[in-house]
C-alpha cells in the first residue's frame, strides 16, 4: 500500500468552476427542451434550475467545510448527470403531459440533503466500519421489506417496492450501500484469514467455511430474496458487487473465475426453469420477431428504443425535436435511448464518458485510501455505480438482456437517486481522507481498527448463536 502522495491541495475552486459548468450544461439542456417543445413556460425553467443550483452550491460549501480535500471532479459530474436527467424527464413530461420532473426534482433535493447529512454526520468513513454487522442486518431488513404484506407492492412484475404514504421506495437500492459497507468491513477484518487459512485445491485456495460463512449467508440471502422478488437486474448487481469485493480484498483471480462460472450456471438454470427469465432471454434474442414485438411484455420497448436511437444517428434530432416519448419508460429504464435519439451518438458518448470518469474517480479514491476498509468501500461503491450503468446501457443497446436497473442520476426514480447520492457523499469522504495531508497526530486508523474489531467480534458472537 505504498502511494505516491502529491502535495495536498484542496482544489475547491476548481470544483466550483466545474459545478458552474455542469449547471450551465444542465441549464442549457433544460432550456432547449422547453424552447423546442412549443410555448415554454419559463417559470418552470428558472424555478427548477434555481433549486438545483442552490442545492449544488450547498453541497459545494459543505465540502469546503467538512471535506476540503475531496475529489473536485466527482460532484460536478454528478450534478451534470442529474440535471441532464431532469431535463430529459421534463422533456418527456412536456410530450406526455405528466409531471414526473417536479417529483424528480423533489427527490433530487431530498437526496442531496441526505447526502449532505451523511457528509456532516460521518466526516470520516472509517466510522462506518463499526457498523459492519449492523449494515448486514440492515441489508437483510431492506431486502425483506417489500415482502411484507400491505407494505410491499408489485410493480411491473417485481416485488421490490414499498409504499409509504404517497412515496414508493425501492429499499433494495439502499441495500447496495449497506451491503458494500458490510462486505468492506468484514473483508477488511478477515482478509488475512481468508487469504491464509484454508486448503489449497489445485491452483485454487479455498477458504475455511467458517471464515466465509457470513459472506455466503449475505450473498445467499440477497440472491434468494431477489429471486423471490423477481428482480434480475439487482441480482446481477449484488452478485457482481460480492465477487468484485472479494477479488479486491484477496487479489485472487480465482474468485472472479468462480463467480463467472456461477453466473453462467445460474443463468442457464434460471433461463431453463424461471418463466420470466426465459421470457427475457427470448425477448432479447428474437427482439425483431413481430410476434414477440407485439406480445404483452414483449420486445416492443427495446425495439422502439433501438429505432429511436437509429433515428437520432450521429448528431441526434436535437433536444425536444425527436419523439423519445414513443418508447415505453422513456424517462427511466430507457432514458439512454431517449438521449441517444435527441443528442445523438456524440452526446450519448459524452454521457458515457462522464460515467467512466465518475467511476474512475471513485476507484482513484479507493487507490488513494490509506485504510483497507476505505479501499474496499470505495472500490465496491464505484463498481456498483459502474456496473449499474453497464447493465442498463448494455440492455438498452441489446448487448445483454434488458433488466430494470436505474441509470444512475438520470433515470426517474427517487430511491435510486437517493442511494446514488449517498454513494457520492461516501466517495467524496473517502477521497477527502485519502487526499488530505497526513498530519502525524490524526492517524486514528489503528484505534479505529481495534475498536471496530472488538465490536465486530462481539457481533459475530451474537450472530453465531
Amino acid at each position, binding site marked *: 500500500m505504498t502511494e505516491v502522495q502529491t502535495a495536498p491541495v484542496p482544489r475547491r475552486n476548481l470544483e466550483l468552476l466545474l459545478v458552474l459548468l455542469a449547471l450551465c450544461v444542465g441549464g442549457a439542456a433544460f432550456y432547449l427542451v422547453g424552447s423546442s417543445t412549443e410555448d415554454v413556460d419559463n417559470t418552470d425553467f428558472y424555478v427548477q434550475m434555481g433549486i438545483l443550483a442552490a442545492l449544488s452550491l450547498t453541497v459545494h460549501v459543505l465540502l469546503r467545510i467538512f471535506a476540503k480535500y475531496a475529489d473536485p471532479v466527482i460532484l460536478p459530474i454528478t450534478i451534470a448527470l442529474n440535471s441532464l436527467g431532469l431535463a430529459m424527464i421534463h422533456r418527456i413530461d412536456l410530450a*406526455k403531459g405528466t409531471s414526473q420532473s417536479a417529483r424528480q426534482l423533489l427527490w433530487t433535493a431530498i437526496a442531496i440533503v441526505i447526502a449532505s447529512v451523511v457528509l456532516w454526520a460521518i466526516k470520516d468513513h472509517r466510522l462506518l466500519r463499526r457498523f459492519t454487522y449492523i449494515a448486514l442486518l440492515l441489508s437483510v431488513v431492506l431486502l425483506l421489506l417489500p415482502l411484507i404484506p400491505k407494505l410491499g407492492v408489485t410493480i411491473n412484475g417485481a416485488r421490490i417496492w414499498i409504499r409509504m404514504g404517497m412515496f414508493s421506495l425501492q429499499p433494495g437500492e439502499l441495500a447496495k450501500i449497506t451491503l458494500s459497507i458490510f462486505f468492506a468491513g468484514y473483508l477488511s477484518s478477515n482478509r488475512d484469514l481468508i487469504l491464509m487459512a484454508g486448503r489449497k485445491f489445485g491452483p485454487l485456495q479455498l477458504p475455511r467455511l467458517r471464515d466465509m460463512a457470513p459472506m455466503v449467508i449475505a450473498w445467499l440471502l440477497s440472491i434468494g430474496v431477489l429471486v423471490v422478488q423477481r428482480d434480475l437486474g439487482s441480482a446481477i448487481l449484488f452478485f457482481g458487487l460480492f465477487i468484485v469485493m472479494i477479488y479486491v480484498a484477496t487479489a485472487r483471480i480465482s474468485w472472479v473465475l468462480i463467480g463467472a462460472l456461477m453466473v453462467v450456471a445460474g443463468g442457464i438454470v434460471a433461463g431453463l426453469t424461471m418463466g420470466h427469465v426465459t421470457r427475457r432471454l427470448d425477448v432479447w434474442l428474437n427482439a*425483431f420477431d413481430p410476434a414477440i*414485438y407485439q406480445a404483452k411484455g414483449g420486445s416492443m420497448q427495446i425495439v422502439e428504443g*433501438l429505432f429511436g436511437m*437509429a433515428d437520432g444517428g450521429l448528431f441526434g434530432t436535437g433536444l425536444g425535436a425527436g419523439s423519445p416519448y414513443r418508447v415505453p419508460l422513456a424517462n427511466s429504464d430507457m432514458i439512454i435511448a431517449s438521449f441517444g435519439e435527441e443528442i445523438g451518438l456524440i452526446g450519448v458518448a459524452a454521457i458515457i464518458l462522464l460515467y*467512466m470518469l465518475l467511476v474512475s474517480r471513485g476507484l482513484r479514491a479507493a487507490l488513494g485510501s490509506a485504510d483497507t476498509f476505505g479501499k474496499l468501500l470505495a472500490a465496491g461503491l464505484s463498481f456498483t455505480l459502474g456496473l449499474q450503468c*453497464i447493465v442498463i446501457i*448494455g440492455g438498452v443497446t*441489446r448487448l445483454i438482456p434488458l433488466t430494470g436497473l436505474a441509470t444512475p442520476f438520470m433515470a426517474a426514480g427517487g430511491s435510486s437517486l437517493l442511494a446514488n447520492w449517498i454513494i457520492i457523499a461516501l466517495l467524496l469522504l473517502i477521497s477527502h481522507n485519502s487526499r488530505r495531508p497526513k498530519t502525524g497526530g490524526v492517524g486514528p486508523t489503528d484505534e479505529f481498527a481495534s475498536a471496530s474489531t472488538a465490536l465486530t467480534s462481539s457481533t459475530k458472537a451474537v450472530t453465531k448463536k
Partner: protein
Amino acid sequence: MNHAIKRVWVALTVLFVICLGGLSYIQFFDAKPLSENALNKRELYREFDLPRGAILVDGKPIAESVPTDDGQFEFQRVYHDAKTYAHLTGYYSLANGTTQLESQLNDWLTGTSSDLLFDRLSAMFTGTRSEGASVELTIDGQLQKTAFEAIPDDLKATIIVTNPKTGDILAMASKPSYNTNLLAVHSTSQAAQNLKDISNTDGLSPYRNPAISNPVTPGSSFKILSTVAALESGKFDMETPIDNPVSVNYPHSTAKMNNFNEGICARDTRARLEFIFAQSCNTPFMEISQTVGKDAFTEVAERFGYGQQLSIPQNVVPSEFPSAEANEAQMAQMAIGEWENKATPLQMNMAAMAIANDGVIMKPNLIGKVIAPDLRVIEDPKPEKFSTATTPEVAEQLTELMEGPVVSGTAMNARVPGVDFRAKTGTSQRPSENGVRMVNSWMTGFAPADDPQVAITVNIQDVDYNTGHNTAGALMKTMLEAVFNK
C-alpha cells in the same frame, strides 16, 4: 489490493467501451437498416405529427388535419360529410393504413412530392414546419350531395356524373357507405374494431370504391358498344331492318337467347336499329356478334376502355371482355352484356362520354388542382384524351339511337321536360334470391344532345327487376334535374 482495484478499473473501462461500441453500431452503422425495419413506424408517426394537406371540394375541406391534444399525435384527420365522400377520400389511419385518394395523393398531402422540394428546403432553413399541399377535386359538392342522398339506404348503388368534354368527374357517390372518421381514430384498438364492424356490412368494403373497383355484368347498356361495332363494320346501317325473332338458338346449342319478355320487341320480327335499341331487343345481337367477328368486337371494347389501365388517380379496375376464351354463343352473350362481360360503373359512364364527345373519351379525372401551402397552384391538370372510341359519324348515329329509350323505350322514366337526354338502360341477370330474380340495373347517358354537358351513369346491384328499373330511372331523373336546375 491496488493492483486488483486497477484491474477492476480496466474491466469496467473495457465494458464501458463495449457499450460505446454497441451505441455506435445502433446509431451509426446499423441506423439505416433499423430505420427501414418493417416494425419501425417512426416515419409514419412523423407524418401524423405534421399538418397534412386538405382535400377540397368547392374550396371547402372534406378531409383536413386539425390540431389535437389527445397526447398521441399533434393532428387528427377529420372528414366532413364523411359518408358522402367515403369512397373517394378513403381514410388516413395509423392502424388501418391509408386508402383511396388519401393514399394516392399522399405525396402531395404530406409535402414529400418532388413538386414541393423547394418548399421543403425553405422550411428547413427558416425552421418552419413543412406542410403538405392541398388538393382541390373536380367534384361538384352540390351534385355529389344530391347523388348520395338520392340513393336509398337499403340499396347497393352508384351514381357517376362526368363532364364528357373534359373528363372531370363531377360526382361519384355510392351506397352503402361508411364514416371515415371512425377509421381515422388514433386509438389503434378502436380503429381496428371499427374496421371490423364496417367490413361486416353487406356489400361494403372500405378498400373498394364501388364506382371503379367492382366490375359486374353491364347487361343491355353494353349495346352502346355492340351497336358501335355493328355500325363500324359497315354490314349494318340505321335503315336496313335486322331479324328480330322472339328467340333464337345459340350456335351448337339448344339453349335460346330470348327477347325481353316484358318489352314490346315481339311486335316486329324484323326491325330497324332504332326500334331494337329503344326497346332493348336481344336477338338481333346474335347476328351482329357473328357478323362483326371476335376481333373487331374486342377492338371496340378496348377502344372504349375495356382492359385498359386507368387512374383517376385512384386505380380503376379494368373492365373485362374475355373474348379470347369465348365461343360463338358466349360472344353473343357478351354482346348483350352477359356471361363474363364485366364492367365498372365508370366504364359504362365512359361509354356515354364517348358518344357525347364525338367518339373521343376524355380521361376521367378527380384532380382539380394542387395548391401549395403558400396558395401557389403547383399542379393544374389539363383535360387529356383517353382514347378515340369511335368515329364522329358513328357517335352521331348512336346519339340518334339513344333518343329512343328516353322517348319511347326503356328509359322513359328518367325523362325530364326540357332536357334532351340520351341514354341506354341495362338489366343483367343475377342469381335468384328467395325466389325473386335479382338483376343489376343500369342506365347510362348524357345531356343535352346538341351540346353535352354531363354524362351520367346509375348502377344498382343485386336488386329485384322492378325496384332496379324504377329506382335507376328515378335516380337519373333526380340527377338531371339537379344538373339542369329543373
